[in-house]
Structures are given as C-alpha cells and as structure tokens.
C-alpha cells in the first residue's frame, strides 16, 4: 500500500468515515423502519384476528342462547299445557266423585217414602207426555215390589186427561237405579224416566252447574 501524504490522508479518512457513517445511518434507518413495519404487521394481524373472532364469538353466544331458549320455551309450554290438563283432569275427577257419592246417596233415597211419591209423579208425567192410552210401565225389581196402585193412578190420569188410561206393569224388571220407562203400546212411543236417563239427558247442564257449585269460593 502506498503511503499518502499527510494532508491528503487526513481528508481521505474523513471522506471514508463520512461514507461509512452515511451507510451506517441508512442501515440503522432501514432496520428501524423494518422494526416499525414488523410491529405494525403484528398489531394489524392481532387486531384483525380479534375483530373477526369477536364477531364470530358474539354470533356463537347469540345462536347458542337462542337455540337453548327456543328449546326450553317449547318444553315449558308443554309442561304448562300438561299442568293445565292435569288440573282439568283433577276437576273432572272431583266432579265424578260427586256423581259417585250421588249414586250411593240414591241407594238410600230410593228406599224412602219421598222417592215413592217422586216415582208416582214421574209416572204421571210420563203418561201425560204419551197422551194416555194403554201404557206399559217398566220399573226395577225393587220398585216393582213397592206395590204401586196403577189402577188408582190410571183413574186419576184418565180424569185429568179426559181419555182412557190403562197402566200395565211390564213383566220383566228394568236394570236401572230408579225411575221408570213408560211405553205407549198403541203409539209405540217410549219415554225414559230412569234416573240414569234423566241424568244423561241433563248431563251437560248438570255437569256445568255442579262444577260451578262445587268450585265456588262463596
């Protein structure tokens, strides 16, 4: 290497140093920008992922909540209907209990004189409805043994209706709790005044009245 004269060597060193300093500065700046950009890349990627995840997460929670709510609402509605049905069924059972009790009571009532009088009234009403004539009366076995005087009753009705009335007791007993079945042998019309028949005809009205009375709070 050639040795340079001193003044020139000093200037050259300065120049070389300046070139190197500038390069190092530029290098530092390039690295600094790269680091900044790197931070920005990471920050943006994380923010984007966060935004996307939060949107999806909120949708997941909303969907899950909505699914379970719908399912549970439907279950609760079914249970509510079932509970209502059970209450209604219980009401029906309590009404039926009244009828069962009534049947037991009727077993006692049909043994009383009051019932006997009622039976005569029912018989007269049946004859009035049939318009007199020859009428067959069917009673149950117990009532057949009450010894109703059909001739006397027929006489009273004949006078009342102004036409002949003949009452005949059917040979076979009826299979019912009480009351009677009256049949006009001429007109071939039958009226059912058995207790069962009366209750059945009045069932809808009676059921509603009994329910109202049974569950009344007053």
């Amino acid at each position, binding site marked *: 290497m050639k040795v340079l004269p001193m003044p020139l060597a000093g200037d050259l060193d300065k120049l070389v140093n300046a070139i190197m300093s500038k390069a190092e500065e530029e290098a530092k700046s390039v690295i600094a920008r790269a680091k900044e950009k790197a931070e920005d890349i990471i920050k943006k990627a994380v923010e984007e*992922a966060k935004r996307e995840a939060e949107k999806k997460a909120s949708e997941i929670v909303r969907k899950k909540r909505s699914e379970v709510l719908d399912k*549970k609402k439907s279950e609760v509605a079914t249970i509510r209907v079932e509970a209502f049905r059970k209450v209604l069924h219980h009401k029906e059972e309590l009404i039926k209990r009244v009828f069962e009790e009534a049947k037991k009571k009727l077993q006692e009532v049909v043994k009383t004189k009051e019932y006997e009088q009622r039976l005569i009234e029912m018989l007269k009403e049946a004859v009035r409805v049939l318009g007199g004539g020859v009428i067959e009366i069917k009673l149950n076995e117990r009532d057949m043994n009450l010894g109703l005087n059909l001739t006397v009753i027929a006489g009273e009705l004949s006078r009342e209706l102004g036409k002949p009335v003949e009452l005949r007791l059917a040979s076979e007993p009826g299979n019912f709790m009480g009351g009677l079945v009256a049949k006009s042998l001429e007109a071939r019309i039958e009226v059912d005044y058995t207790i069962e028949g009366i209750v059945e005809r009045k069932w809808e009205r009676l059921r509603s009245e009994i329910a109202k009375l049974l569950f009344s709070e007053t």
Partner: protein
Amino acid sequence: MFKKLTSKEKECAQGWDATMDEVLKRILEAESEARKIVDNAYEEARRIEAEARSLAEERARAVYDEIMRRAEEEAEREVRKVEEEMAQEIKRIEERMLMEMGKLESLASKNLEKALKLLLMEALRP
C-alpha cells in the same frame, strides 16, 4: 505543442498518479463496504419482516383461539343460566298446579253437600 517534462517532473507526475490511484481505491473500497452495510441492513429488514409475519400469524391465531374459547365458555354459561331459569319456571308451574289442585280439592270438600243436593234433586225430576 507540449513541453517535454524533465525527469524530475516525470517522477513527480508518476508519484501523483500513484497517490490518486490509492485515493480512488480507498474510496471505492469504502463505498463497497458501505454498500455491504446497507445491503446487510435490507437483508436484516427482510428477515425482521418475515419473522414478524410469522409471529403475527402465530399471535393472531392465539388471540382468535382465546376469544373463541371464551365465547364457548360464555355460551355454556348462557345455556346453564337458561336451563336454571327454565327449571325454576317449571318448578313454579308445578307448584302452582299442585296449589290449584289442593284448592279445588278443598273447595270440592266444602261444597260437596250442596252439589249432591242439586244432583239428587235433578236426578228425580224428569
């Protein structure tokens, strides 16, 4: 046209040329070194950027997974909450039903005689 150089002058001119060569050589070397420094910096910058992209992907995935995990947990909590609320609602419905049935029973016992009286009266009246 040109003045012929003396040998002394010739020696001096040759010395100057050599010096200038050396100067240029040093400058070129410095510039080459400087370029290397800058090139290395760009290379390092590319490496930093590539590393950042890889790191960004990794962090983004971690953030995404964490948020989704929390969302799943929250959804599960919501499910449990709704189930508990509904269980309470069902319990209330059943309690109300039993209470209603008890009340009906009590009213039916209280009013039985009146209902029986009506039924018996109607049963014997065509």
